[in-house]
């Protein structure tokens, strides 16, 4: 039952408290249980939209906030110069540092933009193998965590403020007491890691206390990938896909552009080629998956399957390839299998089967067999030493820990950046077991569920306050360097471990350097500085190991999937396993496919919903084995039938005022036996839940919004994108303006866009875009300057998904401009449609008159004017908007101005070709967005807009938009039935749109 999860919520079930019972009545205990928040924050936590609403009220209490520039006298301001100027710093100019952000043990290289050392914005490190300059939202949002006002700020012992020294003292006592038993009873719990320094430290601990145990827990682990490799090659190996060498890619329930480590690289390698029209180099993408993913959106052919059927499908493919594998029991789409097989065979060494981490090892092993058979092994699919070390099955490791705790063998448990009380499978009853441990230490950035029931809580640094190291999927190491001193009394996990390793003198800096001194050859200082500068440590990528395939793998048949309704547990595209649930950007970011914001839901296909008599926003009891959780339904076209997909990471109970209580907790029904997919039931209740969805309608109404065709059709009809354009006389009342100088424009390539949201997150960070909270989103007041529209075409059960990022179109005949009574939105000489916040009185006429509805209005004081710590993140080159003004995409004018001024100061007439990148363009892993000067023939955007694929959205209105789209091309396999291209048929999928923002009527 769901109560199990509440076991350790200290207040809910005090009976489980043995060691702390006597505390239960003392005020300390109250403080202990209910974190450090002042009561106001407690209220905020309970209000649906968390801190946003709370602050909105604060704003109200401050009356006419936003009365910024009427007749108000400027406040007195101070100037505080440095005492001693750091030589590399030029106040007023941003400074970038190379570092990395880590998830599940893998690092993605980033460049941290700082203003006087305040990290304000991230961009992918072009030099880094797993970034290539792209950056996904989770990494992007990392910059906000530094400034998160809900971060844990002080060390606490049993809920009382304590100090680092007393912690060290107590830990040393622990070590002393355990010394004669060689550390038995001391246990560590960490996530999967690739950090050489961390490994070195653990090695030191092992030397010192051989009996101490290190457990690893990762709710979303890759162990099946390793296990599959072991079955195939007899040893654990890292599998890496070289999709730049692939010509056919078969994604088998892998979400290889989303959840899978290396996603950004995968996306870059597959989709960047789609920016040139050399179709032979396009790799054909087959995707077989239960739930639409970003990868599935970019697929040339997409097949809906249950996760349980993946093995059977792959077996069928293997057989079609002539491999001797047992005939699959489950029935599969034979036509698809044979077509894929034939295509893979044709691709030979360029053939890749990407198997999802959730698939059983047998399937991974079978994929290896196929690769070996086709000669792709070692070419398009390579295996190296494991990046994550040591390779252990996190599930088993956690099981061992729990049984040890229940057996009372654990005296001190050190939990580093882990939150098992929340994210351990329900059947392990981790909380209950934990309460038997006399001394629990939690190290983490927030006072989360686990911190609430730990004796010690040590706040940990944010990513940009500490030294560390991490490896990418190909082993390349990155030194993580801080850009500023810790803002609060926080400490790194490494520092905590060092107490036990005996390396506690010195700092993390020394420890990391020590690690690399041992490893780097040649002039250390030189290499070290270069590594810091580049963001990658030279030649640390792992060498390819290609052992012989064990033929036995062909014998092993994958286990059959569950019968009846298959319940799938997948990491949330935004919150992952829940660790990001404190980040308002990620909470509000509309999910790539469902467009849900501030919530997760049970996703089912329209026909499944029909069969079960459910419709969107119905609350159901999701029952798995003897456990149950209540959750809302969301009907999602493109889902496989009889599948219910739930996203992990929601329903946090102690994630600060913002994250707590958003969505439902899928861990409550997750079991350690079948953590990925299992049989379950949905029981309808008579309740509905209001869900905030940013897009309720996804029919194109035959309006030619997204234009698409197959590459062949394009070859024969190059003008297809304009075939149905009405040729009306293009009249205008105003004198046309000739743009002599620069003429800014943007083009978005729909073939390369998979709707990953990278652009949205990057824009939010670059342009100080506020978070508005669930209530406001539900009312249709989200503030994102760039939104990704998602449309379906074809049959509702099996539609084709296409995504269309919509920015301000910068219309040359802008409807918004002529209607503004105060000239607050006007046209610039370079064609920018300029929005001037300080002149805006907020009639909203411009937004009404905008055919693209890209304008956003501050209905309340959305920007947080009062939270000091958030001010650190703001981009000083962009105005923070007040209440009652309109805002919209500016093509990142602050970057244009910086470049313009720079060029003109240097006496140049023009800005160099493509030297300006907008935030969205920069972040896009597949380079789908081009921005630049349309007057410059060499500019990428100019060249793209000249191709016949380029079309204007709603061009017939004669708004003359500067942002155009490149029609989507499908690189289809003729053997397979062609799903009709987007603009020809209509899906009738509005069913799934019912409810949504207006689910309440």
């Amino acid at each position, binding site marked *: 039952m769901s109560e199990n999860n509440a076991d350790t919520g200290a207040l809910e079930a005090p009976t489980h408290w043995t060691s702390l019972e006597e505390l239960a009545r003392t005020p300390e205990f109250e403080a202990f249980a209910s974190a450090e928040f002042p009561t106001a924050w407690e209220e905020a936590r309970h209000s649906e939209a968390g801190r946003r609403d709370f602050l909105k009220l604060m704003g109200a209490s401050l009356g006419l906030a936003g009365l*910024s*520039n009427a*007749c108000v*006298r*400027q406040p*007195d*301001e*101070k*100037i*505080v*110069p*440095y*005492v*001693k*100027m750091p030589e590399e710093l*030029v*106040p*007023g*100019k941003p400074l970038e540092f190379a570092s990395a952000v880590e998830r599940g043990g893998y690092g993605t290289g980033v460049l941290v933009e700082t203003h006087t050392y305040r990290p304000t914005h991230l961009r992918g490190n072009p030099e880094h193998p797993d970034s290539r300059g792209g950056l996904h939202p989770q990494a992007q949002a990392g910059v906000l965590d530094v400034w998160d006002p809900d971060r844990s700020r002080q060390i606490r012992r049993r809920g009382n403020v304590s100090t680092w020294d007393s912690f060290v003292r107590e830990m040393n006592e622990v070590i002393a007491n355990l010394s004669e038993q060689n550390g038995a009873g001391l246990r560590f719990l960490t996530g999967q890691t690739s950090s050489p320094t961390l490994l070195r430290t653990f090695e030191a601990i092992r030397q010192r206390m051989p009996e101490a145990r290190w457990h690893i827990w990762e709710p979303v682990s890759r162990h099946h990938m390793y296990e599959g490799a072991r079955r195939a090659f007899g040893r654990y190996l890292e599998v890496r896909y070289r999709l730049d060498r692939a010509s056919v890619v078969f994604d088998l329930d892998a979400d290889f552009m989303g959840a899978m480590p290396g996603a950004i690289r995968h996306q870059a390698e597959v989709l960047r080629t789609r920016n040139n029209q050399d179709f032979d180099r396009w790799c054909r993408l087959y995707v077989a998956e239960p739930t639409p993913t970003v990868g599935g959106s970019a697929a040339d052919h997409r097949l809906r399957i249950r996760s349980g059927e993946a093995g059977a499908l792959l077996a069928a493919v293997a057989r079609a390839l002539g491999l001797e594998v047992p005939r699959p029991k489950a029935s599969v789409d034979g036509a698809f299998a044979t077509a894929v097989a034939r295509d893979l065979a044709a691709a030979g060494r360029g053939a890749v089967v990407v198997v999802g981490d959730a698939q059983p090892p047998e399937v991974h092993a079978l994929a290896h067999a196929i690769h070996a058979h086709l000669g792709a092994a070692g070419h398009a699919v390579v295996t190296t030493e494991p990046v994550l070390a040591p390779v252990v099955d996190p599930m088993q490791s956690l099981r061992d820990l729990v049984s040890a705790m229940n057996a009372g063998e654990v005296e001190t448990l050190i939990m580093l950046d882990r939150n098992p009380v929340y994210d351990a499978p329900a059947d392990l009853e981790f909380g209950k077991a934990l309460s038997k441990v006399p001394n629990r230490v939690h190290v983490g950035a927030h006072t989360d569920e686990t911190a609430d029931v730990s004796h010690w809580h040590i706040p940990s640094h944010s990513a940009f306050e500490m030294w560390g190291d991490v490896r990418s999927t190909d082993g390349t190491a990155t030194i993580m360097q801080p850009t500023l001193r810790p803002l609060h009394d926080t400490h790194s996990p490494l520092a905590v471990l060092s107490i036990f390793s005996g390396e506690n003198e010195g700092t993390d800096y020394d420890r990391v350097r020590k690690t690399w001194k041992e490893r780097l050859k040649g002039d250390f200082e030189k290499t070290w500085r270069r590594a810091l500068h580049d963001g990658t440590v030279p030649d640390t990528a792992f060498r390819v190991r290609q052992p012989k395939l064990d033929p036995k793998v062909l014998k092993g048949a994958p286990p059959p999937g569950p019968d009846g309704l298959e319940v799938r547990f997948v990491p949330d595209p935004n919150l992952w396993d829940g660790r990001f649930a404190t980040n308002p950007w990620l909470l509000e970011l509309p999910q790539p496919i469902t467009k849900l914001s501030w919530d997760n839901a049970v996703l089912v296909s329209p026909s499944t919903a029909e069969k079960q008599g459910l419709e969107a926003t119905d609350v159901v009891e999701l029952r798995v084995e003897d456990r149950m959780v209540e959750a809302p339904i969301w009907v999602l076209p493109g889902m496989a039938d009889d599948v219910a997909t739930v996203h992990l990471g929601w329903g946090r109970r102690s994630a600060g005022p913002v994250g707590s209580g958003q969505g439902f907790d899928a861990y409550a029904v997750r079991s350690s036996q079948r953590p990925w997919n299992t049989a379950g039931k949905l029981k309808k209740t008579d309740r509905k839940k209001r869900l905030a969805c940013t897009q309720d309608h996804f029919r194109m109404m035959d309006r030619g919004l997204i234009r698409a065709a197959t590459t062949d059709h394009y070859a024969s009809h190059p003008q297809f994108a304009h075939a149905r354009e009405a040729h009306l006389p293009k009249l205008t009342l105003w004198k046309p303006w000739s743009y002599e100088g620069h003429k800014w424009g943007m083009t978005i390539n729909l073939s390369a866009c998979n709707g990953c949201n990278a652009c949205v997150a990057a824009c939010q960070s670059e342009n100080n875009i506020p978070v508005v909270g669930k209530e406001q989103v539900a009312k249709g007041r989200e503030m994102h300057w760039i939104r990704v529209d998602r449309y379906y075409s074809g049959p509702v059960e099996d539609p084709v998904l296409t995504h269309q990022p919509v920015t301000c179109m910068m219309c040359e005949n802008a409807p918004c401009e002529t209607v503004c009574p105060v000239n607050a939105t*006007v046209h*610039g*000489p370079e064609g*920018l449609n*300029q929005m*001037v*916040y*300080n*002149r805006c009185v907020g009639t909203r006429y411009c937004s009404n008159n905008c055919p693209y509805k890209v304008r956003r209005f501050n209905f309340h004081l959305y920007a947080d004017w009062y939270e000091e710590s958030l001010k650190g993140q703001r981009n000083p*080159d*962009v*105005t*923070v908007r007040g209440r009652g003004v309109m805002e919209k995409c*500016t093509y990142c*004018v*602050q970057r244009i*101005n910086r470049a313009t*001024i720079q060029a*003109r*100061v240097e*006496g140049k*007439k023009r800005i160099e070709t493509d030297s300006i990148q907008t935030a969205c363009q920069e972040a896009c892993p597949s380079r789908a967005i081009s921005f630049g000067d349309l007057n410059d023939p060499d500019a990428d955007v100019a060249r793209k807009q000249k191709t016949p694929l380029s079309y204007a959205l709603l061009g017939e209105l004669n708004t003359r938009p500067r942002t155009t789209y490149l029609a989507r091309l499908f690189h289809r396999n003729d053997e397979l039935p062609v799903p009709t291209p987007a603009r020809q048929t209509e899906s009738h999928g509005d069913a799934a749109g019912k409810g949504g923002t207006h689910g309440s009527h």
Partner: protein
Amino acid sequence: MAQIFPRSANAVFRATVMGVIGLVAATVALAYGIHGGGYFTRQDLIRHQPVPFSHRHHVESMGIDCRYCHWLAEESHFAGIPPTHTCMGCHSQIWAESPMLKPVRDSYESGEPLVWNRVHDLPDFVYFNHSIHVAKGMGCATCHGRVDEMALVWQENTLHMAWCLDCHRNPEKYVRPKDQIYNMAWNPTAREQAELGPKLVEAYDIQTQDHCYTCHR
């Protein structure tokens, strides 16, 4: 029946009508005066500082160039306020004991920065950039006035948007040769400026940037 109003009522009435009209006019005028005037703009308001730093002394008497302390004027939007070290560069030798300079020495020793009162303060939604103005031949004195003659600095101009636009729309009225930018005393006659201005605008390729995104984003 008896008259309700005495004869004088007419006069009173007329006076009242006039009075009301006058009052309204006066109120409007007052509003203009206050909003446009020194109270809001802080024009000509002498600002006291933690250290009574005299520009007159340092520029006029010592002949120190503006860029010695405001070293960023040519490369950043921010002209730069000297770090304590810059002050101590000289004042560790001269006036090393002066009580006036105690805050500076304290800052130097304690590492606590000096906190100056901002004199020229544009609203936060205005993005002014020194480097481009300097590069295009705008002299310091054009906006800041004769700082070299100010003991304590005050704001010479209104800093009203209209004031900015005046120059942004007719730069030739204010542009000066680049070698005169830091010359506080540069003061051409109207005729000189009239013939020099257009030439310089041409020479420096000055564009009349009066669209909103020039300063607002």
